[in-house]
């Protein structure tokens, strides 16, 4: 076994035994970690899914009780804020389909015509949950929610969230609390967006340095290319007319809309620009896209007197990263980058986006 019988010297035999033991220990440890991770993933996913179904069921109690399918569908549409949800349905007390919702980005999504049995079913990539809707201690229907799950899906979720803006954007932003890269972003607390954590900043600095050195393979080249484009977009020679953020029409309609706020690491304006660009290019952070209201609020905060007497008034969120994300390939992009001063603060005239033309 493992060539132990062929080993002639005792030293060789001991080495082989040691290697085998370490290998086995590593294998067992890796398996245990995998198992723990899978269990955690399962528990989180099942809790999320069950909670979503229960919330929908609670909201749809009256819709089912009074047979109002329209309100039922409205309630289900709330789930579009959760991109991992691909299908959902409400069934009446007889198990007949009452209202349904199918995610727009997956044409293959279907809901069963009859209510499946209550419970949680996990597949390799999909999970479904069926929960009863109870009113006055009686089951008046059931909720069915089908969702993707898994680690890979989390990354995908961030990119799907980077789609074109619209009425659902605030909801999507609110729902995008999951970190884009593991440990890169600090989690939301109480719905308030927070900037990148230490790990995220380290990752970003690494990406900057990589791009500046011109290394890093395809990613580094892509970052360099995007950085060049962003610098060109910020250049007065580019002919991009700055416009108030509030004017959404300033960016081409139907395009992905990313608005990035310079982060302010204290390296000067150019670095801010590059930093923001890299955020977009690398898609490192994915916790949310600020809307005009966010930026306007920051403008107001900037105009308020600062805490330090005599010093320049600084926005309380000056060091907060407003992350951008890379829209799906082929969609084109229009990036609104907000130039700031060396502290990342927006000037008195308020935030001004600069449109980055589509590729």
């Amino acid at each position, binding site marked *: 076994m493992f060539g132990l019988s062929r080993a002639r010297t005792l030293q060789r035999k001991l080495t082989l035994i040691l290697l085998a033991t370490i290998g086995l220990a590593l294998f067992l440890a890796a398996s245990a970690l995998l198992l723990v991770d899978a269990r955690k993933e399962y528990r989180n996913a099942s809790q999320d899914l069950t909670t979503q179904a229960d919330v929908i069921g609670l*909201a749809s*109690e*009256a*819709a089912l009780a*009074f047979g*109002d399918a329209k*309100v039922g569908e409205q309630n289900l549409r709330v789930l579009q804020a959760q991109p991992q949800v691909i299908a959902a349905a409400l069934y009446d007390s007889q198990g007949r389909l009452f209202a349904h919702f199918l995610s727009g980005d997956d044409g293959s999504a279907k809901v069963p015509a009859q209510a499946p049995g209550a419970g949680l079913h996990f597949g390799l990539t999909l999970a479904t949950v069926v929960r009863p809707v109870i009113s*006055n201690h*009686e089951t008046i229907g059931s909720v069915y929610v089908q969702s993707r799950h898994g680690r890979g899906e989390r990354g995908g979720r961030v990119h799907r969230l980077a789609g074109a803006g619209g009425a659902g954007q605030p909801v999507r932003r609110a729902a995008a609390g999951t970190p884009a890269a593991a440990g890169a972003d600090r989690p939301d607390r109480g719905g308030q967006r927070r900037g990148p954590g230490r790990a995220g900043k380290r990752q970003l600095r690494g990406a900057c340095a990589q791009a500046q050195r011109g290394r890093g393979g395809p990613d580094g080249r892509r970052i360099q290319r995007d950085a060049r484009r962003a610098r060109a977009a910020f250049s007065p020679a580019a002919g991009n007319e700055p416009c108030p953020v509030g004017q959404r029409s300033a960016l081409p309609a139907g395009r992905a809309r990313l608005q990035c706020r310079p982060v302010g690491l204290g390296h000067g304006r150019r670095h801010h620009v590059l930093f923001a660009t890299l955020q977009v290019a690398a898609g490192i952070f994915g916790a949310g896209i600020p809307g005009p209201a966010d930026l306007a609020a920051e403008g107001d905060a900037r105009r308020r007197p600062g805490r330090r007497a005599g010093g320049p008034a600084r926005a309380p969120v000056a060091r907060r990263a407003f992350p951008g994300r890379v829209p799906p390939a082929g969609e084109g992009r229009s990036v609104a980058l907000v130039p700031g001063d060396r502290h990342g603060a927006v000037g008195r005239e308020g935030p001004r986006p600069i449109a980055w033309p589509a590729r």
Partner: protein
Amino acid sequence: VSLRRTLLLLLPLLAAGLASASVQAQPLGLVRESAVKAAFLYKFCSFVEWPAGTFRGPEDPIVIGVYGEDAVASELEQLARGRTIDGHPVTVLRVRDANGAALLHVLFAGGPRESRMREVLARVRGPVLTVADGPVDGEPGPVLQFTQEEGRVRFQASLTAAAARNLKLSAKLLAVAQQVEGR
């Protein structure tokens, strides 16, 4: 000739069948509507909050009075038999006149005579969920009123009337109301 004779024999049978079907369809539709209204009346109780002290305990029944719609009363009696709403048993009363509308928690007023319906609704005092079978003019209006939309039974809600009667309507109920007055 034989085919013509057969057709002549079958035609009266077919006509008789169609006539009986139409005769049966009419009451079936009425039964359906009264059943839906009865179910709605029963469900309304789950989405209304009466002021504290209305019920002395969980054994106190929710009394639903029905005026002018015996079909609805019958359906409601069947529906509520042996069931409870938040622990309260449900009692159905057939209200014959305005004087019989005391000690009710819910009053449904319907029937062909709108003036009588209005009178009954106007005589009710206190925290009573008043439900009218159709639009009713005058003050105080009913808290809820049934309407028809594309052949379906729906209802409108009046927050003003609910507040006047010290009742709280659940947001869930308002979400499915066709129209909410006083929002």
